[in-house]
């Protein structure tokens, strides 16, 4: 509990915001970021699904190495990788404990470890594919493969607004803390403090709901001035908007290298 609290102290709101912005816009010059979104979708479709059906561990391990290389190449933010690792490790640990409870033994570790390996390949693939693209590229790519205009708008809007929203939420949260009174004793396992913070966290949404409602209205009015809802369904508008997406030599090269690597892995085992 103490460690968790210390760790949380290190992860401040500012830090998270900076990391997210870094993830979104900080790595436009990496090799993966310059690829066409469709290339990355195809690539993800393979590495995100295929591991479920592969049972040879060397192949999975090879894929894992490849994913680590691409993740390093696309300079993913450490925060995201930390969250990912914590999730994977805690999931595996929980399943292990649960299986012991119901008569499992050390042999259960092995299948669970393979499962964790699979999951890490899949999650690293999605991290690489979706974080390598900047938001504009991702939403254009989704639009190109036929997602509704609302989805691509939502992504662009999310990336643009999230830092502001986090900021605002943080401000409200802090002002609640300023005006309120923290519990004098922490209680067993910090339960008093936990309840206090949870209550503030929930209450802070009340002002945010109202201010966000105002903002939503402004946004929609601005969108309608640009004719968003009609442009979204118009084929010609889509064509012009997406004309800049083009598969180039490096896209094919990247796919070819990936395919070659996978074939090599299979033939070696």
């Amino acid at each position, binding site marked *: 509990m103490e460690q968790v609290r210390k760790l949380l102290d290190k992860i401040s709101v500012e830090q998270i915001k900076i990391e997210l912005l870094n993830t979104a816009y900080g790595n436009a010059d990496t090799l993966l970021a310059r690829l066409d979104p469709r290339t990355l979708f195809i690539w993800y479709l393979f590495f995100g699904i295929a591991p479920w059906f592969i049972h040879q561990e060397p192949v999975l391990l090879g894929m894992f190495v490849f994913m680590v290389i691409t993740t390093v190449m696309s300079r993913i933010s*450490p925060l*995201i990788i930390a969250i990912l690792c914590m999730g994977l490790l805690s999931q595996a640990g929980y399943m292990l404990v649960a299986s012991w409870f*119901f008569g499992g033994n050390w042999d259960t570790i092995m299948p669970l470890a393979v499962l964790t390996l699979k999951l890490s390949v899949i999650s690293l693939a999605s991290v690489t594919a979706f*974080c390598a693209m900047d938001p504009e590229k991702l939403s254009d790519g989704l639009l190109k493969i036929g997602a509704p205009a609302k989805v691509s708008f939502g992504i662009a809007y999310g990336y643009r607004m999230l830092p502001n929203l986090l900021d605002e939420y943080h401000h409200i949260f802090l002002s609640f803390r300023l005006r309120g009174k923290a519990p004098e004793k922490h209680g067993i396992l910090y339960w008093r403090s936990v309840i206090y913070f949870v209550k503030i966290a929930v209450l802070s*949404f009340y002002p945010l*709901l109202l201010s966000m409602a105002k903002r939503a209205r402004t946004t929609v009015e601005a969108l309608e001035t640009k004719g968003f809802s009609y442009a979204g369904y118009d084929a010609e508008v889509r064509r012009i908007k997406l004309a800049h997406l083009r598969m180039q030599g490096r896209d094919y090269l990247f796919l070819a290298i990936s395919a070659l690597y996978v074939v090599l892995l299979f033939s070696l085992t």
Partner: protein
Amino acid sequence: MSLMKQRYVLTQSQKMMVFILSMSLYGLSNMITELIPAFRFGSIELSVEYFAFIPLTLCILFHPLYAAIGASLGEVIFGEIMLGQFGGLGELEKFLAFSLAMFIAGSLVRDPKNRRQVGIAAITGVAIHQMISSMVDIGKVWVGIEELEAVPGLAESVVVIEGVSFLNDVLFSGILFALLPTMYLVPRLYGKIEPLLGMKPRDNKIRYSLGQILGPRVIVLSIVAACAALIAEFMAESDMALIEWDADFVDTYGDWFIWISIGAAALVALVTILVMVSRRRNAGGKGVSHG
């Protein structure tokens, strides 16, 4: 009847406003809950599953369908794609189940000022969502393990685990983060938030009978959505996880490389934390630290 239709008629841009509002707020809350650690006592996990009160409040105050879809999309975008946890096809199941549960909860309320109604709708929404997820999880094990009955105790233990987690989610998360906040927020926001979006509050003078609420449209929609959710989940996970329990490969290969991968994951986590700590310390030394 004409009055009832009146309530559901929103202009295109009003629908978009509800959608954006729900998406960004629930997305934000999702990002926050992703970062709150869970407390575990054995197999019972006290975790903040989600801040369900946000979509519940919005579904009750506005058009349930657009608020529900907006919230689900917000979860996928903010909580998954932006944090790099996008699960591909498995997300589809979550998306459908959550939209369905929130939509039903929103349609159940006819008078947002009536706290009892709001409370019942809130807890029903959470229960429906958790019920669908538990059933999908149990179904996954039934499909995933070919000879489930052959493994002693596993079938019972899966049902027990899922049942416990269902009760835990509904009674702990559901009451603390869905029931109480929704009952607090809805009557307060009713009549205040709607003018900000340029629309009239939901008219509470219209009374529906239960039969009207659970009309054929809702029932058909829920069945279709439930089936779609199941299919999506099966497609995503049909050949997964628990199949590895037949352990014939354990003797074929050593298990050292698995430890390497787990060790690598742990090492990366450790190094990341260390780097972040040292970075913060540097930043603090220059006096630009933020709390």
